[in-house]
């Protein structure tokens, strides 16, 4: 009952939120919602213990696929976004064949190489990817009305509500997966792959599954992005963006579901709202870099460890709830 009340409160707050913000802040809010999905999907991949540097490029695969499907084949935009996610998942399955022959550091570097190759292919082949200039004039989301509210997708508020709803559903799915026997198996693959294997777990299949699901949701977030900004190019998905995702995950912490999301929200607010308002435009990367260093030095378990300290309950009770899920 208290839980229901809490969630209703959060929902009401999220619905009211954009009305308290300026236009440019509303735009940032849309990006924030999309990035939350990106970083939450990244966490699913890290559950199996692998850190990829190709995640943002995979997001780009979703964005390019969705943009091209709607632009050249005239696919209905919401369907195109969905298919963008499917394409990203399929590309991940293909990439898994070379990449999952590697582990740890080699996987990190290998995924980086694979991602850069994809990006260079976009750059090189003007048809259909538009070369270095990318794709412009991507179909916007078609407007529609649900009776009480008219969605006009040139307004960031409308896009925020739509993307927010989509992302909420995706987060719920990711949460369900993590708390399911499948999620337990991901943990098992991460912490003791030999024992998991001896219990009948097909390691390769589960690693690929995590990679494909994470990539599918990243692709979905890419589709959401593409139809919002209307133009994408290879540099929209370069390693700098990947660095941001990595930072969100590490500053937030990756041992809980909410850690990376927390990192993304806090750092985005800090970066886009606080620093921008203070007028530190050119100093922002400097401060951002300093925050990264300070948090890795002094808060190695992430922001989530602060939250855990604040809300510490008896561990036995907490884990009982986990099992009852």
């Amino acid at each position, binding site marked *: 009952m208290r839980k229901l009340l809490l969630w209703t409160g959060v929902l009401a707050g999220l619905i009211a939120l954009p009305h308290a913000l300026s236009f440019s802040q509303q735009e940032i809010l849309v990006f924030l919602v999309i990035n939350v999905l990106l970083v939450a999907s990244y966490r699913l991949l890290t559950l199996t213990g692998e850190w990829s540097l190709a995640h943002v490029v995979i997001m780009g695969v979703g964005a390019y696929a969705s943009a091209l499907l709607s632009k050249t084949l005239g696919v209905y935009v919401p369907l195109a976004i969905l298919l963008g996610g499917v394409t990203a998942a399929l590309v991940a399955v293909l990439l898994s064949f070379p990449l999952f022959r590697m582990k740890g550091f080699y996987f990190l570097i290998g995924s980086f190489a694979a991602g850069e190759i994809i990006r260079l292919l976009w750059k090189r082949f003007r048809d259909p990817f538009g070369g270095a200039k990318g794709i412009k004039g991507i179909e916007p989301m078609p407007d529609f009305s649900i009776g009480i509210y008219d969605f006009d997708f040139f307004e960031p508020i409308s896009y925020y509500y739509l993307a927010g709803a989509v992302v909420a559903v995706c987060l719920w799915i990711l949460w369900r997966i993590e708390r*399911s026997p499948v999620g337990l*198996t991901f*943990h*098992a693959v991460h912490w*003791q792959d030999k*024992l998991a294997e001896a*219990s009948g*777990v097909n390691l390769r299949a589960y690693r690929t599954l995590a990679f494909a699901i994470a990539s599918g949701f990243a692709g979905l977030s890419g589709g959401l992005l593409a139809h919002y900004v209307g133009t994408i190019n290879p540099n929209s998905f370069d390693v700098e963006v990947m660095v941001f995702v990595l930072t969100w995950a590490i500053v937030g912490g990756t041992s809980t579901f909410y850690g990376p999301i927390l990192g993304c929200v806090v750092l985005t607010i800090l970066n886009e709202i606080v620093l921008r308002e203070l007028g530190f435009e050119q100093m922002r990367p400097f401060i951002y870099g300093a925050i990264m260093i300070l948090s890795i030095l002094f808060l190695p378990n992430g922001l989530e460890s602060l939250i855990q300290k604040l809300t510490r309950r008896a561990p*036995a009770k907490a884990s009982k709830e986990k099992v009852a899920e």
Partner: protein
Amino acid sequence: MNKLLQIEDLTMRFGGLMAVEALSFVVEHGEIHGLIGPNGAGKTTTFNMISGFYKPTSGKVLLRGEDISGLKTHEVARRGVVRTFQHSTLFAELTVLENALVGTHMPFRPNIFAAIIGWDKEDRIGAEARAREALEFFGLEHLAQERAGDLSHGHQRALGMAVAYASHPDVILLDEPFTGMNPEETRRMMGLMRALRDSGITLLLVEHDMQAIMGLCDTITCMSFGKFLAEGSPTEIRNHPAVIEAYLGGARHVA
């Protein structure tokens, strides 16, 4: 037709080193079978070939007549042959119950779509029941919510076996199960193994210390320098001149 596991001419070569050479023996259904030998005899290599960690250079491992040699570990496990590990190989960060739940992976194979929608309630209840049953069997019920990494050494070993037991195996392969245990823990572990056998599970255990398993095994196979040396009941093995020689380097006396 009691031959559950047949090892036929199993050979493993690492580069120029012959680790195991043309080893053959049979594990009967429902027995506790020991594989012993001095250090470097090739026991662990044999163990790893049977459980699918190594692919043998030549030879076969037959399970109920089916060749399982060269299969991957999880494929071997899915055919009912499950191994445990030396030391305390566990999911230290997970709870005891969650460890056992990983063990139920095979009988209650997770389905991701059912899990998202919530149509796997029955499977989850079944898996938890099985996991608790396994914990109860090994006397770990009361520790279900503890972190596995916090358990005592003896409990960790028992949990390792509970994880294997939870998967409803036909054969459990045990890799030096008594290493590092005090006499009391060893005695309790032996009781558990007999109980496992009486519940219909066949055990194959690899052990360096011959005395530890004398009173436990129904049949013992002894190997030395990668080759078959002798086989028989514990009494026969204890008095077998070749075994005595291999262990004591010629001294005519085994305590």
